């Protein structure tokens, strides 16, 4: 089969590899009909996530059709159309039982490695480094899905791939980011980053009752998309976002601050340069401009939510501000399984149409180009969906 493989920093290729096989009793094999490139894939693309190996198959946002099931998979059959959470969860451990699916104890094949980094191991993820299990990802024609009895959600008839594909990661991730803010009536939510997760965080914050949402980015088309959703916007290249937020909130600061950027933040000024240089020589693993700004901007007693990905260490954490302003911070890889059904309902009842995000529909073969334009934000790229089995007319047709 064809698969998008990582070969090094900014080197992804479409390789021909063996088809996946059932390896464990709870496995299923999925024929991938749609798969997206995630912002967090760019951290792999840029070489900031350790323990990638040349040849690793990328991709953790994918859906498709069940073609084979292991002997213990009783809830799926050949031909079922499913979306698959990017987190792999056993369904039986302490954490799965408490809806903390991304913290599953039993799915990281390299738990010992994660324990050395983090003290404890989170769940295994598709296509996201050997530190997190080394599972082959779904930017491929076929993919093996472990614990298929637990993760995949059958898609009801009448919903297209594009309507439900983002249930695999970015919609639940943006939603959990907003939920982690525990938004109260009348509250103002600031969202740093108007990429895909930021866009879903903005819309989720509104669904969860935010009175105002302020979106911060520098890319005009992304800010426009935020504005279209009803957010007020700050282009941080035109003004100091910290100052603007204070002015826009009567000096109080936003009640809730969401860092939907993570470890590869861009910024302006000396601190941004400091981080860029230090990360480039691998002296810190994350450029934490956004997180710092969020903590300083947040109102006293406010809430900071971090859906953005950080893999290791950051510098100059403003701990003094965090402590003295009495802030609360919440984070975590998304507990996708918890959100699949409620968010599917949101899509069905018309609260949201996730297709607003898609700017590019491409065949799998064009993945290397897609990674490049997504990374460099060329061609107004916001979200790429790869369709391994679509014909050219289908791709062209879907785009209209």
């Amino acid at each position, binding site marked *: 089969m064809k*698969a998008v493989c990582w070969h090094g920093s900014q080197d992804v290729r479409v390789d021909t590899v063996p088809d996946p096989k059932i*390896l464990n009793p709870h496995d299923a094999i999925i024929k991938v009909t749609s798969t997206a490139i995630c912002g967090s894939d760019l951290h792999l693309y840029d070489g900031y996530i350790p323990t990638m190996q*040349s*040849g690793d198959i990328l991709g953790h946002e994918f859906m498709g059709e069940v073609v084979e099931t292991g002997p213990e998979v009783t809830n799926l059959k050949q031909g079922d159309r499913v979306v698959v959470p990017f987190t792999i969860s056993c369904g039986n*451990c302490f954490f799965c039982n408490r809806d903390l699916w991304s913290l599953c104890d*039993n799915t990281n094949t390299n738990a*010992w490695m994660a324990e050395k980094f983090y003290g404890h191991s989170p769940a295994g993820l598709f296509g996201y480094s050997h530190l997190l299990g080394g*599972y082959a990802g779904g930017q*491929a024609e076929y993919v093996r899905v472990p614990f298929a009895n637990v993760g995949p959600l059958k898609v009801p008839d009448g919903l297209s791939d594009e309507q439900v594909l983002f249930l695999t990661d970015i919609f639940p991730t943006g939603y959990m980011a907003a939920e982690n803010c525990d938004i109260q009536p009348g509250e103002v939510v600031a969202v740093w980053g108007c990429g895909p997760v930021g866009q879903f965080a903005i819309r989720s914050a509104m669904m969860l009752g935010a009175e105002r949402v302020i979106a911060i980015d520098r890319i005009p088309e992304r800010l426009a998309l935020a504005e279209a959703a009803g957010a007020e916007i700050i282009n941080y290249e035109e003004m100091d976002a910290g100052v603007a937020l204070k002015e826009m909130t009567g000096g109080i600061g936003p009640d809730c601050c969401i860092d939907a950027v993570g470890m590869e933040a861009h910024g302006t000024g000396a601190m941004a340069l400091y981080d860029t240089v230090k990360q480039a020589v691998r002296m810190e693993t994350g450029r934490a401009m956004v997180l710092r700004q969020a903590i300083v901007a947040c109102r006293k007693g406010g809430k900071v939510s971090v859906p953005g990905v950080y893999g290791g260490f950051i510098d100059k954490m403003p701990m003094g501000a965090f402590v003295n302003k009495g802030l609360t911070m919440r984070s975590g890889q998304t507990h996708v399984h918890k959100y699949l059904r409620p968010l599917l309902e949101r899509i069905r009842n018309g609260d949201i149409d996730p297709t607003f995000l898609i700017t590019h529909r491409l065949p799998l073969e064009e993945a290397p180009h897609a990674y490049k334009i997504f990374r460099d934000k060329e061609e107004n790229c916001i979200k790429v969906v790869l369709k391994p089995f679509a014909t050219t007319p289908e791709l062209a047709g879907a785009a209209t």
Partner: protein
Amino acid sequence: MENAMSTQTPASKQAGDLERWASIIGGGAMVLTGLQRRSLKGILTAIAGGGLVYQGTQGKSTLKQVEDAAGLDHAIRVEKTVTINRPAADLYAFWRDLTNLPTFMRHLQSVQVIDDRTSHWVANAPLGQAIEWDAVIVNDEPNHLIAWTSTDDAPIENSGFVRFRPSAGDRGTEVKVVMEYQPPGGMLGTAIAKLFGEEPEQQIGDELHRFKQLMEAGEIATIEGQPKGG
């Protein structure tokens, strides 16, 4: 306390020691810390035999004899605990059928049960070799503790125990493994050192992880055999 100041008789002191060790093994959180430089094998055997095994020589405390017997300088000692979301009885039952152990202990080829106490172990060694030994269960407390030690003719002296204890707050069972190896010198010693890895603690930790996966999730997570680009 091991001097003239002590008012205890040697026999009662010995009994006190054994009691303390039994309580460490039966319930201590940090077993190796508690045992310090005493041989696990000696203590397991002493507890099993009510102290008689090591009472032979006059004038020597149990502790001293155990130290003599051990030569702990070269011993590899490991202690590792994992919490598994299953009742102790299930975990004990799976482990007590020693033939199950190779399913989650990768270095083992097979364990053959000879009788209720005795078993024959075959482990993979480097270069396609195998190492074999017999082991005896010296303590078997259903649903709580299994302790074993290798027989005298084993090429590698090894002892250990696994302990199952209900954990706080409905989280299942704490499973603790404590092991001690005495690798011999020479080529065989080197081979055995490789067998148990450069980081035995990580290896035991990995094995306990796999045991947990099997018991909680019904399978051991793997990526062996999945596709990969060239």
